[in-house]
C-alpha cells in the first residue's frame, strides 16, 4: 500500500490533490474534503480556525493513521492536512483512497476520517467575534471511531 501524507501550512487545492492521486490498476478512487465552517456549533461567527501542531508528532500521527488503512484492500492512501490559520471555506483535510473495488475505498476513507477526528495530533482553536475557544473531540467523534473497532480490529 502506498502512503502519501502532507502537512500543509498554506491553502491547498483539493481538486488538484485528487487529479494527481493515482494508483495502477485501481478501479475506484474515493476522496473526502473537510472545509472550515464559518459558524461554531452554537451558531457564533468564526473568523478563522487555528490548528496548532507538534513539529514531529503531528506528521507521525498522520502517517500512523494512513498506515492503519492497510486493514482494507486498498492500493494507495493520500492525506493532506492543514496547520496554522485556516479561513472559513478553506479545505482543512483531504483524504483519498484507491482500490480495485469501490467498497474498500469507501470504507478506508470513512475509517481514516474517523481516526483523524480523534487521533491526529492537532489542537484546534476557533477565533470569533465573541472570543476564542479550544476544541476537544466530542462523544460523537469517539463513537464514530469506535464503530470501526468491531468491524476491523487492530
Amino acid at each position, binding site marked *: 500500500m502506498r502512503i502519501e501524507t502532507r502537512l500543509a501550512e498554506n491553502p491547498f487545492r483539493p481538486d488538484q490533490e485528487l487529479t494527481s492521486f493515482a494508483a495502477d490498476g485501481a478501479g475506484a478512487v474515493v476522496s473526502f474534503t*473537510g472545509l472550515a465552517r464559518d459558524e461554531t456549533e452554537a451558531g457564533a461567527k468564526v473568523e478563522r480556525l487555528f*490548528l*496548532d*501542531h*507538534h513539529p*514531529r*508528532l503531528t506528521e*507521525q500521527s498522520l502517517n500512523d493513521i494512513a498506515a492503519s488503512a492497510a486493514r482494507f484492500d486498498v492500493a494507495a492512501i493520500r492525506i493532506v*492536512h492543514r496547520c496554522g490559520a485556516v479561513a472559513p471555506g478553506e479545505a*482543512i*483535510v483531504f483524504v483519498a483512497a484507491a482500490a480495485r473495488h469501490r467498497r474498500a475505498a469507501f470504507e478506508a476513507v470513512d475509517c481514516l476520517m474517523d481516526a*483523524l*477526528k*480523534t*487521533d*491526529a*495530533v*492537532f*489542537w*484546534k*482553536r476557533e477565533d470569533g467575534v465573541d472570543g476564542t475557544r*479550544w*476544541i*476537544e*473531540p466530542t462523544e460523537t*467523534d469517539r463513537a464514530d471511531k469506535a464503530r470501526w473497532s468491531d468491524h476491523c480490529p487492530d
Partner: protein
Amino acid sequence: MAKIAFYGKLAELIGREVEIDLPAQGCTIAALRSRFDGLDPATVCACVNDATAGEDHVVTQGDRVDFLPPLSGG
C-alpha cells in the same frame, strides 16, 4: 538545562517553550509538572524526546519535554 514545550491552550497560558535548569541528578516528570500551572496528569500527556513518559521518568540534561493537552483531532 532542558527544553520544555507546550501546545494548544497550554502554549497560550505558559508560552511555547521554556528552558529550565535541572538538578544534577535530573528531575521527574511529576516534579516538572509542579513547576507550572495547568499540567494535570489526568489530562495532560508528557513526552520526553518524542516518546510518552510516565510520572517517574527522570528528565536529564539536554532532554526535550513536551506537555500535550487533550487533542482536538483533525
